[in-house]
């Protein structure tokens, strides 16, 4: 139930010399909850072929250095999305429309784009992305309005893979040989036990390690470049007949979710204190990979 507060319209004029236009260009957003048109090029001339434009209205989401504010689009101006509130969740159509200068073919100044993207965001930070990846011709000869399709909004895809569980005595003696351990990972909203309680009777009190291949995928909607936090939880328990030694540990791993894939490795250490000088460290080794697409 949050209202549209920001819009970024990005497109690139085609390479044809006649692709830019001086005619009025509009963005329309609407749905069962209402909607409206916005003028896009009031004081922003679309006057060069093969040029990228990033026009923003209101308080846009996922800002870029190339953003150019549209005239009257802030401070409750007549092009501000907040002036006539419309709920983002109820928008089901987005289009771009060109007018002819005087509704005659003779004075129609054609516009040709190499696709268009419209990123909408609401007052609660949610995103909606609409796109058309095609040559878009706006002209009296070919039609003056093009609707865009809704696609997944910018999303950070994160994979967390548990690769190994290692044991090392970290005191004068190991905490023991009879182990149960588990490992969970995810985001605050999507958290899962990758390794359910796993029993392992080691043959040695010294170093050992076990290989695993357990993976959790999470998808977090948000602007690319925004850091995302992965929550990791390790648990280790050494079964003693006189007293159980158990410890759990939470760790937060912040990943910079940029475009392209970034891989990192890490380790979550759980120190298990046994009797007197008996202590072990159980290490959960994991790989993280993340990529952001918009």
């Amino acid at each position, binding site marked *: 139930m949050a209202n549209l507060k920001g819009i970024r319209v990005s497109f690139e004029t085609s390479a044809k010399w006649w692709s830019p236009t001086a005619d009025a260009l*509009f963005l329309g957003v609407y749905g069962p909850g209402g909607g409206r048109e916005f003028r896009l090029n009031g004081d922003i001339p679309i006057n060069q072929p093969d040029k990228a434009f990033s026009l923003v209205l209101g308080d846009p989401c996922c800002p870029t250095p190339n953003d150019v504010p549209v005239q*009257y689009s802030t401070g409750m101006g007549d092009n501000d999305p907040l002036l006539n509130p*419309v709920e983002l969740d109820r928008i089901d159509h987005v289009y771009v429309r060109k007018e002819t200068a005087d*509704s005659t073919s003779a004075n129609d100044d054609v516009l040709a784009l190499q696709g268009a993207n419209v990123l909408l965001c609401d007052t609660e930070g949610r995103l909606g992305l609409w796109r058309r990846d095609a040559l878009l011709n706006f002209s009296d000869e070919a039609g003056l309005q093009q609707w865009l399709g809704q696609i997944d909004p910018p999303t950070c895809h994160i994979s967390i893979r548990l690769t190994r569980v290692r044991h090392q005595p970290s005191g004068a003696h190991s905490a023991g040989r009879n182990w149960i351990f588990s490992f969970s990972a995810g985001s605050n909203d999507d958290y899962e036990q990758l390794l359910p309680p796993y029993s392992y009777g080691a043959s040695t009190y010294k170093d050992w390690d076990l290989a695993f291949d357990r993976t959790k995928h999470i998808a977090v909607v948000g602007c690319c470049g925004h850091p995302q936090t992965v929550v990791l939880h390790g648990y280790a328990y050494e079964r003693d007949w006189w007293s159980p030694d158990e410890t759990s540990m939470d760790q937060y791993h912040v990943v910079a979710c940029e475009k392209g894939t970034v891989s990192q490795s890490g380790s979550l250490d759980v120190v298990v204190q046994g009797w007197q000088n008996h202590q072990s460290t159980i290490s959960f080794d994991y790989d993280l990979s993340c990529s952001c697409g918009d």
Partner: protein
Amino acid sequence: MGNIKGIRIDLRTGTQSWAATGDKIFLGIHGTAGGREFRLDGSLKLNQANQDHRMVLGVTCCDTPGYQQVQYSTALGDNDPLLSPLDLASVRYVYVRKETADSTSTNDDVLVLNNISVLLCDADGGVRRFAKRGKINFSDEVGLQHWLAEVDPPTCQVTIVLKRIRHEKAAKHTAGNSWAFTFSAGPPDNHASYLNNYNLKEKKDSWDKEFNRTASWKYPGCCGHAQTLSIYGKAVEDDIGHDDVGEWTREITAPCHSGTSTESAELQLSVKGIKNHESLITFEYDVISTCLD
């Protein structure tokens, strides 16, 4: 729902000196079964700022007087909604669009509305309403089209209040002093239970018990359409030999005029016991109907 037969438009132009327009204004209605535009200002000009305009296309929607007929919008004229039938239930979008005089910013005559409401009526009594409020600007500088959001249509709310139950002796002796009451009310297919075998012991010949229990029902539709409901009352006096029972169902009508009306009424049951034993049980209730156009 049936086909749209009437469209009622209420709008107010903005207070700015330049809020009125001489440009063409269209109303668009479309959805899953198609749709069309209607010209709104063919003969009705929106040429004064800060003024209410009340227009109707087709037949009068909700029989409200004082609306100006849009040009060519009756008798299957080109602006009559019945000319190209459109099922009211299929409508998803309602918009208002302004044209510029000649598609140049120079000759764009801006229109600003403070609010607009569009009421759609079909031949079966179905009604839907779309509206928008705030500074609604139609101009070359900021866009020429606004979509409206669906809001509540005119709705009649009927409330039935069970106020009290009274007991009176109707013969030499009452039917008894150990009672169970049941009371329900509402549309025949959606009765609300107010009392369900509510037990009460009372030795007096005359007594009354206050309840003030309420239930409400909503009927979307034009004001002035009466709604039929029913009430049911039952009183049982618990006897060792056999129960003494009285029960009755009554049909009632809520007028649903514009505004609020309250009618007080009673449902009276006779409960007869052996020989000269009889009681009168009276359920006192109010029927309140409120219709907002």
